[in-house]
């Protein structure tokens, strides 16, 4: 499962306090996040993507003092990632309308959706494994009930019931949080 905001932020703050192990965990966890960030929005080859990922990791490291501990880590990270990508376009002198580009990227909502995914991950972790697995398969990964049942080795009605109970439990939990 992908690392979530709280975990990343905890590692980041650990690194800021001089904890090398936390810093290394953070950088390792960022690699898949950054790879998918760049892959989604560039037609570059794997080597170019990896170069950008590395450059972003270096920026995260050398400019980590600009992270404000009271703010969202993902927003800081993706602002750097976006800047590095635009800088890369500029260096290659590709004719990209930079002014519009930034809005376009923000509008695509990758950050929001990945922050949302992290939240969902948190919520699902509070459910029993069977319910969480059934919800993830049918509602997030987009599998059919039959496929989910096959993959988990349980009956279709079991999947349906698990999804139903799980969603109900989540709804109750969220309603409870709001109160």
């Amino acid at each position, binding site marked *: 499962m992908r690392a979530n905001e709280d975990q990343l932020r905890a590692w980041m703050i650990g*690194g800021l306090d001089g904890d090398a192990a936390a810093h290394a965990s953070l950088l390792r966890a960022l690699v898949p996040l950054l790879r998918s960030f760049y892959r989604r929005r560039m037609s570059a080859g794997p080597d170019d993507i990896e170069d950008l990922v590395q450059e972003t990791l*270096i920026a995260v490291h050398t400019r980590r003092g600009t992270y404000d501990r009271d703010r969202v880590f993902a927003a*800081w990270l993706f602002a750097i990632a976006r800047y590095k990508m635009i800088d890369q376009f500029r260096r290659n002198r590709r004719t990209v309308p930079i002014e519009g580009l930034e809005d376009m990227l923000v509008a695509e909502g990758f950050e929001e959706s990945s922050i949302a995914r992290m939240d969902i991950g948190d919520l699902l972790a509070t459910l029993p494994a069977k319910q969480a697995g059934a919800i993830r398969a049918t509602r997030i990964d987009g599998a059919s009930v039959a496929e989910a049942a096959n993959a988990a080795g349980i009956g279709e009605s079991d999947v349906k019931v698990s999804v139903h109970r799980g969603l109900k439990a989540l709804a109750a939990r969220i309603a409870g949080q709001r109160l």
Partner: protein
Amino acid sequence: MNTDDLIASLSDGVQPVGRHAVGLRLALGVIGGAVVSILLISVTLGFRPDLWLAMQGPAFWMKWSYTVSLSAGAIYATARLARPDPGSLRRLWLIALPVLVLATLGLGELITTPRSEWLAMWLGHTWTKCPWLVLALAMPIFVGLLWSFRQMAPTRLRAAGAAAGLAAGAFAATVYCLHCPEVSAIFVLTWYSLGILLAASLGALVGPRLLRW
């Protein structure tokens, strides 16, 4: 280089970074530059001989309140823009507040002064030099800020450059008060502000080139 090796070398010997790293580094850049500017004044222009006496009168403090409050606002803006996610910048119009206050003071001055003396009051003795001297004294401070920015992560380079230029100009004007003998509010409002504005424009001009990272 392999990404795993890169991570290993980056997390080898991690230095702790304080909560106020951005503010401290900007302050260091501004103060370092200002020391050079003060040295420049003492060597070339000289401090005004009646500085001690002037510091007991209101005109000196009128000028300093203006330039110091403008510097504070500009440095705050610079600190915001030094981060990759500066957030909403809507409150930055507050930087215009000192200008409005000074304009009000200037208006009062004009009302209490006979019309025949307006021009002399506006131009003072040094209006031809003042904006250029402020701009020149802003250069060391701007260079200091460029040094600060080497650990910053601005994503709006032109805005960050303009804010750094504004901060350098306003702080240079603060330092310039140690030399400048002028006393009227409309003089400061026009010629100081012109020098500060020149510095900010220069910052906006070179920001995208010099602040890249």
